[in-house]
């Protein structure tokens, strides 16, 4: 076990800067509301709240729901960027509400919040996730192997393990897919998230289903629809290089098959 380095420890206890006097500010949240039980039309509604700018957008949504308007509806669970429930369009960009701090959004101006695009809005910020998960299931997102299973674990070198590490980080939040202009125009396109999850297995040295998956992605609604706009990479809250992963799948299709 490592031993303490005392010189560092001695000067350490000062990093309170992040939490020094945290003055509350008044921020306006402009939220796109939609409830077909009430009206067929969506409309923008403004809410003003007092909030510490170091809090999350999710905290702001909770303050509104809990103290002002209980009908405001959104999905959330873990509140720290792991479960993927609360992808939404914040100031025009896809982000997770629980990973976006108010201070990073120019809160002196109204902060706009709307549902992610390309999936049917069901109520306020809640969209129909079924097409998204269907595309995921279509790429066979599971390890495919042949022959008998070994008694112990399959061996995999650290380098081979590292090869697909980036795409294992995906939390299926749909921020990438719903930021993709191709997906907005054509919901049949698999979308970046499904391709990321295919990549995770295609480049796993243990997997033997690569050909099947590449065949699926070679489809007219597959990887070739990607126009390399990098929206997906910008949107990914896990920092996955989504566009690069899609390019790698394209390259695999070319080098393996043609």
């Amino acid at each position: 076990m490592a031993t303490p380095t005392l010189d560092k420890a001695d000067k350490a206890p000062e990093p309170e800067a992040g939490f020094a006097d945290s003055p509350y500010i008044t921020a306006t949240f402009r939220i796109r509301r939609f409830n077909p039980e009430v009206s067929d039309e969506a409309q923008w509604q403004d809410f003003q709240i007092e909030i510490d700018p170091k809090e999350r957008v999710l905290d702001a949504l909770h303050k509104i729901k809990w103290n002002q308007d209980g009908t405001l509806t959104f999905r959330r669970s873990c509140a720290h960027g792991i479960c993927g429930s609360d992808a939404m369009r914040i100031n025009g960009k896809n982000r997770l509400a629980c990973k976006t701090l108010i201070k990073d959004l120019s809160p002196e101006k109204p902060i706009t919040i709307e549902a992610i695009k390309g999936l049917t809005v069901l109520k306020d910020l809640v969209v129909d996730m079924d097409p998204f998960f269907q595309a995921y299931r279509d790429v066979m997102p599971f390890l495919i192997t042949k022959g008998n299973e070994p008694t112990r674990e399959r061996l995999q070198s650290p380098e081979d393990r590292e090869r697909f590490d980036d795409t294992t980080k995906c939390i299926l939040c749909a921020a990438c897919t719903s930021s993709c202009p191709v997906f907005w125009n054509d919901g049949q396109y698999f979308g970046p998230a499904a391709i990321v999850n295919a990549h995770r297995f295609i480049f796993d040295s243990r997997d033997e289903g690569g050909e099947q998956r590449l065949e699926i992605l070679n489809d007219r609604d597959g990887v070739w629809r990607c126009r390399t706009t990098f929206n997906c990479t910008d949107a990914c809250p896990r920092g996955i290089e989504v566009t690069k992963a899609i390019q790698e799948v394209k390259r695999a299709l070319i080098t393996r098959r043609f």
Partner: protein
Amino acid sequence: MQIHKYDTVIVGAGGAGMRAAIESTKRSRTAVLTKLYPTRSHTGAAQGGMAAALANVEEDNWEWHTFDTIKGGDYLVDQDAAEILAKEAIDAVLDLEKMGLPFGRTPEGRIDQRRFGGHSRNHGEAPVRRACYSGDRTGHMILQTLYQNCVKEGVEFFNEFYVLDQLVVEVDGVKKSAGVVAYELATGEIHVFQAKSVIYASGGTGKFFKVTSNAHTLTGDGQAACYRRGLPLEDMEFFQFHPTGIWRMGILLTEGARGEGGILRNKDGERFMEKYAPVMKDLASRDVVSRSIYTEIREGRGCGPEGDHVYLDLTHLPPEQLDAKLPDITEFARTYLGIEPYTDPIPIQPTAHYAMGGIPTNVEGEVLADNTTVVPGLYAAGEVACVSVHGANRLGTNSLLDINVFGRRAGIAAAEYAEKSDFVELPENPAQLVVDQVERLRDSTGTERVATIRQELQECMDANVMVFRTEQTIKTAVDKIAELRKRYLDVSVQDKGKRFNTDLLEAIELGNLLDLAEVMATSALARKESRGGHYREDYPNRDDVNFMRHTMAYREVAEDGTESIRLDYKPVVQTRYQPMERKY
């Protein structure tokens, strides 16, 4: 109202639920009901690892693991169950690898292992590398891998279905499970699922605390559904406070950070754990470390202007090691605190993390109606259950293990039971309780607000039944919870609609939290000793003569409708380990 018929119904789609589903779907017609989507479950937030004595990197064996688990649980662990946990751990890890889980690897390509709190070589000699991991996102990888395999097996999910009632029918004097009643979030419709067997795998109840690592959705729905139908809850006073939550937010920073060499320091920069646990130091069990942190804070050695936290120091570790082994938690520090862990220590405080107690089961996952009688057709696994492999304090990495070992066992047992059994006839108006509950809340014009009561509950629990407890603080909590339960009857919601009415569901969840908080505080008041996660300042020692036994709490309803809690006790199963003083 719709009625569905399945052989097996699983409530919850986290690690335990999906591990069970992979087994039961092969053997019986199975439906999995989850109030989220499967990949949103909180298993995904687990970070550090899953224990198994693979001995891939140094000498280890399952017997040492069994001992550590029993000692970690302060001897309240049922030793037969702990032995199963440690033995089956090895296959549980290998099964996950074969399902595709991308474990970290040794240079030889085997599954790598790291140190973790309370896991030791040869009965406490020194820390051992037993935790199999995947960076600091082991839970994420388990959740994804299990979901991937559910897709492969064609498991049938009902997403965003909230199970609100457990149907228990008495047949010839025996309580049997007939199915569950669920509320569909998208439509507000109520569904009855008649099933030969039901498995609860719905997770913990951490949301009755304010500073917690738990998701907003961890509201003890499964525990509450069973408890309200007269089934007992075991050892609810035992709740784990994880030492390293992000200060004030409670977000988990894995114990793996200390396994990689991270050190806890007070305001003087002192490595204070050397005082409290000379051998295991920062890797002592979680209850010990959390108490040590609060002792430092109480004695004026806490950090910051208010002296209310300590530091997790990673600054002496090479940045490459942090990037490779702890990428997520270092990012949390940057995102939520604006702190660079390469150069600055991270402010932390203990955070409410894990319920050791829950629905009592035997080692096959069968739910108990009392100390010995099983409820035919009813199963539970994972955090919702109490087997009890965690006793008074769970060891880190044993929960990811628990969900895999006992999720699998419950899945097999439930499906096999369904195969040889008939449906139990549904009671008349099976959905009545849920219909009444939903209508009462939707129609209520009361003046109490859900958010207010919830906040008061959380503040009361943090102040009175957290790491340190006394008769007085627990009584304060009991009284406050009683007041809140009364006020809850006057709660109303603003959203009166049917579609995605999360306002209504939050009100129902609060009702569950209040019921379970009451059980927890009542059980804690009666346990006049200190053991594991339950520390009574007025009874600072473990008392094996009077309290080497599990608490069993039952809801009683008098003829005039008044509710009360009856406490009973169940013996601890001891096999080869005699209780000893617990030192790290």
